């Protein structure tokens, strides 16, 4: 019986396929794995270096950035760029996982809310060292926007564009309602404008101003404070209760849009969906709304408390480098090219804000109405002399911004009393600072 079985195996050629055969197969796959791993390594034998570059944004940004990458590779044939991109939320979730595994991209898009968070975790390179080594120029940045990339004496990001908060408005509706926003207009004037729009045009005035962290920041700055101190929140629970109570009253009265409707059109904005006539957001978003919505959109000044000070400052998207990159020099050269090269400026336009360096700003002449509008808006703001200094956000600011939006919407829905909501927010903020 046993003999038969053995012979049967032999007959099938199994004898050859046992240990040795399997080991061969296993060894082969290991070798293949090894090859793949080698292929993934970032240094080629001929001195070619490859860098991973990651960003978030929509399709137009991705198309433009890929063009600029080709331009860079032409000028630096020894450096190859591997692009990675996603939308905002997916980008940061992926980034967190990569960074915690010691494997973030070599160069990546960044924003002020993440500087201290990832500096605290040792992920960001202080680019000052690369600047002094001559691989990266910190000159020719417009209106002091370079400070947007600084925190605690380090240069953690190099701005690619400058943005300010603005009131993006539906030009048609404002015109039909006969509202003409002027620089220095006050909050009371803004509320009565919303009332007028609501009464004459039968749509809400504002999409939900009180859930926007960056707007509350401006409001606080108008009162000599700010949303953040270096390590904490710059306002009290009572302040926030007041801010949200007022907001809820305005939802009830109809001058701020019904949050149920806003929710349904997401991820589209309530402004471009035609639910309301104005939204506080970054000025470069008007580019997006122009593509998304049916109306024409323009920029209006931020309302003030004292008739002059808007609390605005220049914010910025920036490029950062990984502190542990194998090729710090090449990463710095890449960033330098991306922020200073005039051709790159021409390709990118104002997609990430008004070009940050004079080389790029001078090279790009906006032709479309939206971009011209942004340029004119920032020029006016700069001329008015109201631009303040940006304050770096404490670690955890990204989580706090999301909580501010989420809890603010709960208030808007009438699902949370403003005082309870403020208490909840302060609790979550404390946890976010500590994380």
């Amino acid at each position, binding site marked *: 019986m*046993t*003999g038969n*079985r*053995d012979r049967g*195996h032999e007959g099938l050629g199994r004898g050859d396929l*046992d*240990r040795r055969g*399997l080991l061969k197969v*296993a060894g082969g796959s290991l070798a293949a794995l090894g090859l793949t791993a080698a292929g993934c390594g970032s240094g080629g034998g001929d001195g070619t270096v490859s860098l991973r570059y990651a960003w978030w944004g929509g399709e137009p940004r991705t198309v433009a950035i890929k063009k600029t990458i080709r331009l860079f590779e032409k000028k630096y044939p020894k450096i190859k760029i591997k692009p990675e991109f996603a939308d905002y*939320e997916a980008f940061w*979730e992926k980034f*967190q*996982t990569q*960074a*915690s595994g010691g494997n973030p991209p070599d160069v990546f898009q960044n924003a002020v809310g993440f500087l201290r968070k990832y500096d605290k*975790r*040792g*992920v960001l390179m202080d680019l000052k060292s690369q600047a002094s080594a001559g691989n990266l120029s910190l000159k020719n940045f417009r209106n002091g926007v370079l400070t947007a990339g600084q925190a605690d004496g380090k240069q953690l990001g190099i701005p690619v564009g400058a943005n300010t908060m603005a009131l993006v408005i539906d030009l048609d509706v404002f015109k039909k309602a006969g509202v003409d926003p002027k620089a220095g207009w006050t909050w009371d004037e803004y509320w009565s404008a919303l009332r007028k729009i609501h009464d004459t045009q039968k749509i809400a005035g504002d999409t939900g101003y009180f859930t926007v962290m960056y707007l509350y920041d401006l409001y606080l700055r108008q009162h000599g404070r700010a949303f953040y101190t270096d390590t904490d929140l710059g306002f009290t629970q009572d302040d926030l209760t007041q801010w949200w109570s007022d907001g809820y009253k305005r939802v009830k009265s109809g001058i701020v849009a019904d*949050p*149920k*409707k*806003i*929710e*349904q059109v*997401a*991820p589209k904005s309530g402004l471009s969906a035609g639910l309301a006539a104005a939204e506080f957001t970054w000025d470069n978003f008007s580019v997006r709304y122009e593509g998304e919505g049916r109306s024409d959109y323009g920029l209006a000044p931020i309302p003030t408390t004292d008739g002059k000070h808007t609390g605005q400052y220049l914010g910025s998207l920036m490029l950062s480098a990984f502190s542990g990159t194998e090729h710090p020099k090449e990463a710095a050269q890449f960033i330098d090219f991306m922020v200073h090269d005039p051709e790159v400026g021409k390709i990118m336009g104002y997609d990430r804000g008004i070009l940050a360096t004079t080389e790029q700003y001078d090279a790009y002449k906006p032709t479309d109405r939206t971009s011209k509008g942004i340029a004119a808006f920032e020029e006016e703001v700069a001329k008015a002399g109201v631009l303040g200094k940006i304050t770096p956000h404490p670690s955890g600011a990204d*989580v706090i911004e*999301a909580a501010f939006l*989420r809890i603010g*919407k*709960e208030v808007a*829905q009438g*699902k*949370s009393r403003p005082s309870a909501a403020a208490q*909840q927010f302060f609790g979550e903020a404390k*946890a*976010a600072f500590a*994380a």
Partner: protein
Amino acid sequence: MTLVEETPTTTANKPPAAPTAAREGRRRENLAGYLFMSPWLAGFVLLTAGPMIASLYYAFTDYNLFTPPQWVGFDNFTTMFHDPRWQKSVQVTLTYVVVATPLKLLLALAVALLLAQKRRGQALYRAAFYLPSLIGASVSVGFVWRALFSDHAIVDRTQTVLGLHAGGWIGNPDYVLYALVALTIWQFGAPMVIFLAGLKQVPPELYEAAAIDGAGPLRRFWSITLPTISPVLFFNVLLESIHAFQVFGSAYVVSNTQCGPADATLVYTCYLYQKGFKESQMGFAAAMAWTLVIAVALVTAVLFWSQKKWVHYENETEAAK
């Protein structure tokens, strides 16, 4: 010396030594078996068992993925039980499980009863009712659901005709969870197929005997069908409740990744995900995961305990006789 040495070699080639060769062969076969299993084994150990054990450890630590985990004992659990959002997520999940599971099974059973009868186009009906189970979990269906339950869409119009002026459900914290419930009920095809298989097992002679005794259709259902398919019902209840506790995809997509509005669709796994991957509180998230494991295990245990009262296995009945 030579002789002694030669002896074992010669004997080895003779028949009595066959068992050793067989053992050797079996060992080889075992080794080959393990080698063939190794991709699965490695996957299980590295991707399932290992991470599970690690997460049990993380549940007792403060861990943000970057700095090494700090042992905090039961802190995560006490914070969690006092966290209003955690309580909300438990409330949302329980509502979902308690409302969706029975309704889905009821519908599945009702349709299975209809389809168990012989009629023309039977296979077509079965396939048609099963189809949503195959595609219901996809992201695209989530988007379709968003559209169906928005203002002025089909659901809103229908309810307006019926005199209900509630508007779209998607933006309304009071209704949006029921859009998710509707989505899972719509996927009743999987339990339906299992019910159908169960209904096939009911001996037809029981119905005949009951009919002779004058039992009506309702009576026959209560006294024959239900007890006979009770093991199948039990299996479906168990499976569907466990599934419902772990709902994530539909809540995430239908709410545009926010699990809102106002946390109205903040199902347990969604809050877990937010804590771990958005707020970098991996220790807290791990504690949440293990709490869910324990809760689901408890529910399963209760169901198993309760089956003694209402589930009838054929061999048991015979043994009792």
